[in-house]
């Protein structure tokens, strides 16, 4: 096999990513500089993942996977070339480096005045995480836990026609080295549990789903409160089973905490990434220190909360994360920036350079993003509305390039005279970030976070969304 025959020298798959790689990586980086590159960055990755699925009372899928890869990025001026490869042999990496240089018209050795001072001291953010993989649940323990979950759901109600529980464990070891001296390693561990059901009674059907996730917590699955989750999920499915379709219109809504924050993430957060500024598609590009939201709204993006799904010890460009205040009392304070974003827009890096894996170049991405809590109780928000909608559980949605959004409501209730009324289905929230942010007039005192996956230019990354209960004075609700 040609691929195998071309493997030469060491295979980094069987190497711990540590300081012993310094010489080899410095040689590669020096070659890149000798071609005249402004900056060369190498990202190495090993992964070890498991995904499991339980359906009804059986384990129906066990899918382990592992992999290796490297992404090499070369900057020249404001342009960059990026090449990814599965081949971690020295020859494979050299091939990728040459390809990336060639994209920018650069040839190794052509710039005699190149200067590369070598890598800085090795920063090992993973030194206390080496045992995470071994401490995570094995197949036996994790399959048992999933079957406990589907059994628990089955015990809740006989009309749950489909009961599914899934578990994913993603372990990743990464190393970042660049000609500006960055030389850092980290280990990441992310676990998610998902449960979903289909309830059926006569011709009525309802679906309900929940997902939980954490980072850096090997015991997360072990500590999962199955009973609490299955009670909540079953209640939601039963309430929605006989729900009527909501009538479309313009109305005030209260969005619940946790995953309700997905709208802020999608409709506003993405517009505060320098990736969007570069494209010229953010309506907030010239709004720093200007009022873009109601003064009740303050929002942050940070990578620091303990075990939160979007937390990181370093970003995928080797920078430690920050607590970035995005909006303060409605005034835009900062954008999220990565290396390329900083180069092209001038906004300083915020430790937000993230990528799904080696095959993507890092880009400015959110981490844990949430609206800060206010002073009201959730009940006060509902009491303030005569006719409106309470969105207890949000589904997914989409956002257009300039902030137009559309989100489905998984579990909704009408609000009548300040009280929750009957459940309704088929509701979607439609709006535009610039118009809706000034209408968030009340924030409750119950901030909570929820794990999610965010797909964008650098692939799917783990994030946390969040908010307290919030009230939007008026929004278009789609229905029938």
């Amino acid at each position, binding site marked *: 096999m040609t691929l195998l025959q071309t493997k030469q020298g060491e295979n980094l798959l069987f190497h711990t990513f540590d300081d012993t790689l310094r010489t080899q990586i410095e040689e590669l980086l020096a070659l890149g500089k000798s071609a005249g590159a402004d900056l060369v960055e190498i990202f190495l990755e090993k992964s070890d993942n498991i995904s499991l699925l339980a359906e009804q009372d059986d384990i129906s899928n066990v899918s382990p996977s592992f992999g290796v890869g490297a992404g090499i990025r070369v900057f020249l001026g404001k342009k960059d070339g990026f090449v990814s490869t599965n081949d971690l042999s020295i020859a494979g990496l050299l*091939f990728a480096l040459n390809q990336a240089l060639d994209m920018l018209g650069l040839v190794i050795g052509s710039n005699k005045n190149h200067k590369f001072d070598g890598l800085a001291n090795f920063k090992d953010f993973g030194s206390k995480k080496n045992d995470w993989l071994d401490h995570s649940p094995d197949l036996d323990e994790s399959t048992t836990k999933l079957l406990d979950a589907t059994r628990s759901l089955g015990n809740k109600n006989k009309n749950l026609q489909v009961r599914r529980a899934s578990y994913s464990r993603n372990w990743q070891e990464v190393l970042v080295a660049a000609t500006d001296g960055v030389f850092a390693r980290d280990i990441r561990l992310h676990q998610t549990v998902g449960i979903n059901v289909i309830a059926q009674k006569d011709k009525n059907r309802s679906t309900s789903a929940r997902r939980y996730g954490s980072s850096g917590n090997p015991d997360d699955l072990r500590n999962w409160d199955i009973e609490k989750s299955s009670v909540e999920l079953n209640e939601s499915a039963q309430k929605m089973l006989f729900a009527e379709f909501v009538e479309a219109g313009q109305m005030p809504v209260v969005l619940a905490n946790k995953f309700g924050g997905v709208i802020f993430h999608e409709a506003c957060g993405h517009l505060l990434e320098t990736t969007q500024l570069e494209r010229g598609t953010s309506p907030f590009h010239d709004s720093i220190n200007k009022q873009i939201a109601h003064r009740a709204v303050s929002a942050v993006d940070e990578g620091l909360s303990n075990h939160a799904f979007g937390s990181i010890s370093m970003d995928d460009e080797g920078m430690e994360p920050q607590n970035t205040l995005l909006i303060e009392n409605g005034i835009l304070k900062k954008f999220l920036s990565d290396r390329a974003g900083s180069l092209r827009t001038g906004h300083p890096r915020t430790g937000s350079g993230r990528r799904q894996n080696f095959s993507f170049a890092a880009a400015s991405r959110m981490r844990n993003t949430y609206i800060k809590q206010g002073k009201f109780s959730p009940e006060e928000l509902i009491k303030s509305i005569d006719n409106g909608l309470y969105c207890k559980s949000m589904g997914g949605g989409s956002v257009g390039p300039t902030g137009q959004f559309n989100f489905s409501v998984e579990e909704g209730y009408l609000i009548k005279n300040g009280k929750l009324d009957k459940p309704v289905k088929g509701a979607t929230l439609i709006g535009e970030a610039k118009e809706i942010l000034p209408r968030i007039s009340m924030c409750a005192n119950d901030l909570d976070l929820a794990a999610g996956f965010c797909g964008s230019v650098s692939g799917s990354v783990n994030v946390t969304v969040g908010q307290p209960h919030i009230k939007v004075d008026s929004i278009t609700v789609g229905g029938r």
Partner: protein
Amino acid sequence: MNNEITNKKIGVLDPKVLNDLLIKYSTQSEIHKWDMGASSSRDISVQVQQGNAKQLKGSQRNSMTLRVWNKYNQVGITSTSDLTSEGIKKAMKGAIEASLFGNEKESPEFSSLAKAELEEINPEISNSHTIDQLLSILKKAEKQLINTHKSIDSVPYNGLNESYMERIYINSEGANRHMKLSQSSIYLYAKAEEENKKPRSAGGIRINSNLDELDIDSCISETSDKLISHLDYKSIETSKYLVCFTPEAFLQLISAFSSMFNARSIIDGLSLMTEDSVGNQISVPNLNISDEGLHPKNVGAFSFDGEGTPTQNIQLVSNGILTNLLHSEATARKFGVRPTGHAGLGAKVSVSPDWLVVSKSKSKMDKDSSLSIKDTIKEYILIDELSAIHSGVKASQGSFSLPFDGWIVNDGKKTSIEAATVAGDILKVLSSIVKIENEQIVTHQGISPHVWVENMSITGEA
């Protein structure tokens, strides 16, 4: 360090070497039954911004999924992107460990057609281009698009890609499939803004097996025409409307509910259909739907699926009657039919359509034959593209609520809709079709004519 580029053939798979390694490691592990699917790809892509290169990308990627049967006939799999000898050895170990948790109640087998003769596809493998050539083409396209109208200020999302792919399926009983193909694609998503109006955007995409034959000019003109038509926009009232779906939009909708035709989804209780639904009328009687992976316009078609079964064209709906389903080996065995060539590879094998083709049955009449996309004077909504499919569709319930790009058409005059959502029930939609136009149009995701549906719920922006 030797800086010679030695990996000129990186990314090329050799089935014989893979087969020999798998025989070696399976024998060492006392595994007598296994199969393996591998793929490899090389691609380069460019993005531009206002005449300058923005990002240039290249990749060489390999992956493999190995499936083993242990002595209790339990199946385990492992996937890896490391196709070195050591990687394959590790994958064998992982698959054997996973097999201990294999589902004894539903164990996949080899496809009975894994060694059957394949349909001749023989795609032409195009000559590769350099990054500079791709950049030059895309810069020119961006410039041409911006120059089509004074209000078009940028093409914020764009890309030109050229890729080479190969796929292998081999098993311990001697099945040996191997196929290569090339593919190029361009997407252009432009933005326009006029004074005191909201920014508007629209896009187009083209795919071909050969970059030199990629129809870039039509992608530019389609994007420009759409965008210009969206510059003047208005909000519409929330109400029930007569709707005409463009071929792209109707295929999006049918694809979103393709679990209706998916035997795996039916068995799992995730489909609107049941095991007894074949033979039932599910739409108006002049609708035909087929899945035609072998259609000559289906760029990127492989001649076999993840289990090695030959790709086949399958009639799914004929005269409105559900006639066939899409199958893997396991679902076909359960239904007592032959696999259809729509399987992935796994411990639990997924099933998915290849290339949907919608057509009008010649033997049945339209409910309203007077409707025509060319000269209808009635008021209707023309839905061009649906969004948020992943979140706005409840496939197991049949309901959907989706934002769309489109126009309200009155007396033949098209006016862009500012923002709106279409909601409904797929079975109701299929039974409310009033006209299927004769002309079938090839899109990048399948083939369909324009399809007219009455009484669709539309929510406008109030």
